[in-house]
């Protein structure tokens, strides 16, 4: 029996944001990544073509991360001692982007210096041609102290600088503007706070085409439903025409999933939790895929097997069905 499909017609469009600059654009990346541009809810191909697919970033750190899950230490092995090698391994694992997250301290416990941060970023840029996101340790003052020199030393690369939040956005946005970079604006799981920060950032003069928003997510079992719904609401608002929500969304399911006990701990847990490694990867993949369904444009992951599975899911979701 013939069916008249129910088709949404949205007035709004998500902005396109391009990360990374190639030589032609004044940078050194061998490729750039563009996200956003949606005119429909995720993967509703029958309403409008989806031009850019969601992408996957792998998170690396500036030095070995002994507090990470032993499963990740085992997986990455000795490349974790060298951010350049780690970045290379991440590229080989299929990442579309690299997210370098700087530690607050070095291995001896001394505060990370701006020189060391710049050195790590330069090493990663030298090792891989992928676009790069550089995140500070997540403490406003330290982030400012490290990200400003990093931004200056990499002028023109169109890096994404984070975390840009209400406490430090002025400094991060100013240096992004001065050095041709982008920012990732993070707010704690709230539609209005996300809008508010985007307004503050654009008021400083950074164009919307250089802002990603990170509405913050929780891991599966640890509050994912809050992030999930905030993302759905942000994307609906964007499509309805609310300019200050029309930004691609970056989320960090890797960070969230791998700090859960289910991923981090293999001993002394209930037998009903099953095989540790497979459980941990399922935790990351289910978190990531759920966020993909709610509108994520950039998913930052930690394990290569999760990257493989999530990228395969993205390929399938991007396939335009002829009949359905």
């Amino acid at each position: 029996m013939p069916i008249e499909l129910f088709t949404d017609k949205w007035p709004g469009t998500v902005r396109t944001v391009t990360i990374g600059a190639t030589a032609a654009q004044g940078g050194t990346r061998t490729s750039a990544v563009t996200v956003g541009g949606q005119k429909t809810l995720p993967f509703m191909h029958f309403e409008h073509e989806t031009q850019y697919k969601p992408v996957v970033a792998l998170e690396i750190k500036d030095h070995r991360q002994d507090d990470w899950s032993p499963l990740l230490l085992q997986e990455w092995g000795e490349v974790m001692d060298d951010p350049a090698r780690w970045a290379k391994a991440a590229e080989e694992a299929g990442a579309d982007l690299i997210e370098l997250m700087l530690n607050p301290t070095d291995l001896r416990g001394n505060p990370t210096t701006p020189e060391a941060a710049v050195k790590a970023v330069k090493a990663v840029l030298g090792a891989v041609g992928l676009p790069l996101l550089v995140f500070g340790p997540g403490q406003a003052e330290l982030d400012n102290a490290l990200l400003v020199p990093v931004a200056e030393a990499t002028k023109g690369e169109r890096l994404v600088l984070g975390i840009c939040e209400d406490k430090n956005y002025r400094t991060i946005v100013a240096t992004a503007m001065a050095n041709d970079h982008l920012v990732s604006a993070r707010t704690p799981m709230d539609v209005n706070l996300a809008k508010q920060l985007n307004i503050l950032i654009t008021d400083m003069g950074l164009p919307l085409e250089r802002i990603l928003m990170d509405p913050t997510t929780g891991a599966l079992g640890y509050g994912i439903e809050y992030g999930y719904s905030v993302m759905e609401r942000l994307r609906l608002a964007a499509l309805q025409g609310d300019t200050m929500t029309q930004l691609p969304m970056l989320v960090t399911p890797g960070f969230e999933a791998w700090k859960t006990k289910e991923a981090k701990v293999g001993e002394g847990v209930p037998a009903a939790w099953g095989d540790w490694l497979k459980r941990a990867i399922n935790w990351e993949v289910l978190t990531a895929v759920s966020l993909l369904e709610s509108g994520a444009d950039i998913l930052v992951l930690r394990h290569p097997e999760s990257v493989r599975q999530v990228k395969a899911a993205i390929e399938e979701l991007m396939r335009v069905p002829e009949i359905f």
Partner: protein
Amino acid sequence: MALSGIQIYKLLPQTNCKECGFPTCLAFAMKLAAKQVELADCPYVSEESKAQLAESAAPPIRLIVLKSDGHEIKAGNEVVLFRHEKTFYNKPGVFVKVRDDLSEEEIRAQVGPAESFVVNYVGIDLTLDGFAVESVSGEAGKFTAAVSIVRSLSRRPLILISTDPSIIEAGMRLLEGETPLVYGANAENWEKMAEVARQHKAFLGLAAATLEEAAGLAEKIKGKGVEDLVLGLSTNGLSTYLIQQTQIRRLALKKNFKPLGYPIISFPNDAAAAAQAITKYAGFVVLDTFTAEFVYPLLVLRQNIYTDPQKPIQVQPGVYEINNPRPEDPVLATTNFSITYFSVANEVEGSGMPAWLLVTDAEGMSVLTAWAAGKFDAERIAKAVKTFGVADKVSRKRIVIPGAVAVLSGELEAELPDWEVRVGPREAVDIPKFMKLVLV
């Protein structure tokens, strides 16, 4: 689609007789539209209007309830496309498939662990909902043998899968008094399958490749008097599935399109497809195999997506005693968001070290969210210490705050001058280490 108050008003007598308890028919119509009163409260409504109103009041997605001895699995009756609009009501039943070409030992090895699987998540016992026995052999004898073995191991509801009505019929004879789902009505066998379903009062799942085919088949089967249907779409890839399921939900809710107003059954073949089935509208999810490391996160995802967004799950604020604390043991402060509480309580319990867990009233928010919203600050923590008489329980006044709110330590020292304020780890998982190293 539900009628608006004005549409309902047109079907009422419009006499403003007030016998319903409202001053006007319009006021009554508005209450009716909001589902706050019953149509029966109007003594004068015509039979014709009653029928029209009943039709519009029928849920846009039919409620299906699988039943077996002591178990019940509901699907359907959903009212929104996005959980934030209200909530998703009936958690999709998660079933494990059992093929009838397996040996008895193999079936036992598969069903046993799945049947006994239970994992506690924030105080809730998560279990599987049932089994789907599939005829692969094409022999009624093997099928009934498999159904019997499964039934001997589990009382949970069953789904019988076959495209051969005589095989389904044979299986159904073993399930007297139950209302299972039989799956596999298609363009060829639908009449006979409908007949079997009708005779045995089973729910009938249909299998179609496209939405048009599914709707056509549903209408034909309905014409035979079988209305308790479940839609199965033999899908090819995540995007097709997503579009189909979204259209089914949209057409049912937005257009009250009855031919697709039924719950969906889904057969995901990997983790991503299963996650999509949970988030995007499946009523029943049938897994090819059971593994604890996959079923656990999947059931947690289902729990999370089907949490009512308007009611954050909370625990009662107060002082919780963990591992029989003595007066010299430390006080650990956290919020009353249940996920936060259970994460912290489980870790403290697992550490084997005694502690007083001070659960403050943060309106059901997690530590960081509550802090950002001003619901978990030094003043509130100090107030909780006083309200719950913590000082009377301890001899050594030590309080630990979560690492994520380390900034509060100064203010808390000012609020609680005779207490020693310590900053704990950011994540609950690091609490045992912290307690062993720092709190001795």
